[in-house]
């Protein structure tokens, strides 16, 4: 019998490999990814109508062509993000997955792991266990996502949801926090894509589950 290749594992061998990402996590992860990219790109076009930054976002990063088109994309993708994001977060909390995988969070451990990673000494052998950097960043991006959605609602409906808007200060402040949450997600995304490509089996696990 020849050695089974990675892709052609016999069923019993496959079954012994632990499931790292359940189907619901994989589906919502990818839907969230697309929705977030659409939200960021259309959001940057909206930003350009009245820039928070001292410059406008480059055209290649924007979606919608102009303010009107961008708002249409933004207010369409928000339903996708809210549905899929809420499913993802609810599952993470209720199943205990977040607690199991993301805790404890330690800045000093994360710093140590980051140093180890940069010197090539950090192993990704067991994909089911996150290192301290991953725990910190994954928790951080989930938090940034929640803040982005809440501030988004606060500036979308500053009269109907005025208590929420007031919680973030006022319309102007909520808008700035919305922008900062986007920046955090943007930076995470850039690093996350680089790391997923650097460790292809982690990408495969988010597609096949193992």
């Amino acid at each position, binding site marked *: 019998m020849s050695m089974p290749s990675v892709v052609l594992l016999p069923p019993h061998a496959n079954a012994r490999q632990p499931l790292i990402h359940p189907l619901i996590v994989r589906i919502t992860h990818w839907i969230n990814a697309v929705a977030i990219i659409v939200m960021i790109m259309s959001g940057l076009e*909206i930003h350009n109508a009245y820039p928070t930054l001292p410059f406008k976002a480059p055209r290649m990063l924007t979606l919608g062509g102009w303010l009107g088109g961008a*708002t249409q994309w933004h207010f*369409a993708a928000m339903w996708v993000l809210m549905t899929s994001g809420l499913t993802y977060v609810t599952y993470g909390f209720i199943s205990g997955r977040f607690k199991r995988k993301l805790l404890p969070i330690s800045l000093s451990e994360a710093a140590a792991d980051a140093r180890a990673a940069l010197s090539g000494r950090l192993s990704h052998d067991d994909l089911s266990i996150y290192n301290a950097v991953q725990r910190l960043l994954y928790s951080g991006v989930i938090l940034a996502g929640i803040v982005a959605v809440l501030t988004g609602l606060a500036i979308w409906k500053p009269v*109907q949801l*005025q208590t929420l808007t007031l919680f973030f200060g006022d319309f*102007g402040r909520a808008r700035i926090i919305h922008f900062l949450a986007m920046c955090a997600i943007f930076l995470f995304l850039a690093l996350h894509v680089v790391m997923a490509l650097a460790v292809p089996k982690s990408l495969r696990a988010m597609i096949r589950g193992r």
Partner: protein
Amino acid sequence: MFGKSRAPHKDTGVILRETAGRLDMPARRVFLRNAIGLGSLTFLTGCDVVDGFSAERMLQSVSDFNDRVQALLFDPNKLAPEYPESAITRPFPFNAFYSEDKAPVIDPGDFHLDVTGLAETKKPWTLEELYALPRFTQITRHICIEGWSAIGKWTGVRFSDFLTRIGADTSAKYVTFRCDDNYITSIDMPTALHPQTQLTFWFDDQLLPRKYGFPMKLRIPTKLGFKNPKHIGEIEIGNEFNGGYWETYGYNWFSGL
């Protein structure tokens, strides 16, 4: 001159579509180009991958869906926050689809406001008659779709009182505003009846200046700025959907806050 330029309702749709067709093309092309370029993303939303027009239609139907969601979210008793005098933004920004010097010049002596559609009393109103109506003042935040906001002080007649005076059929769906700067927009009846929706004649204790919409604007603190028409010349109550100037270009119609 401006009084005569008001678009008759039957033609409004056609004129709007023509205007959109002419003025919108560069923006629309860019929009479509982007939509096609992002064809690989559109699989998510269930439209044809390479058909830009289809992406545009899909987005418009979500926007229509968002109109219905916002109508449900709208609480007719929920008031927009009011602010102290010290919070007023001075100078208050000017914003329109034309530059400040292109704002219409209206002769107050010659002016009359037309009432059309489902109302019992359709006699035109002079400014003198309008100024004599009971008034109230609000200091509220004007929020622009572009993302900026400014707090201003507006004084005028409660729009629901005005609708009562003209015997408007408040079971009608829409109120449409045709303006002397050739702007047009329409709003839902619940928002028209909201206690803070105001037919405004004064701004910051002065007669409403030309750049802010002389002789009158509609102040709606529960909607985005572009839903606050200036230089209003005709108010129509009806069940026919008339959309609006920016709405034709793709801004969401309800645009509630």
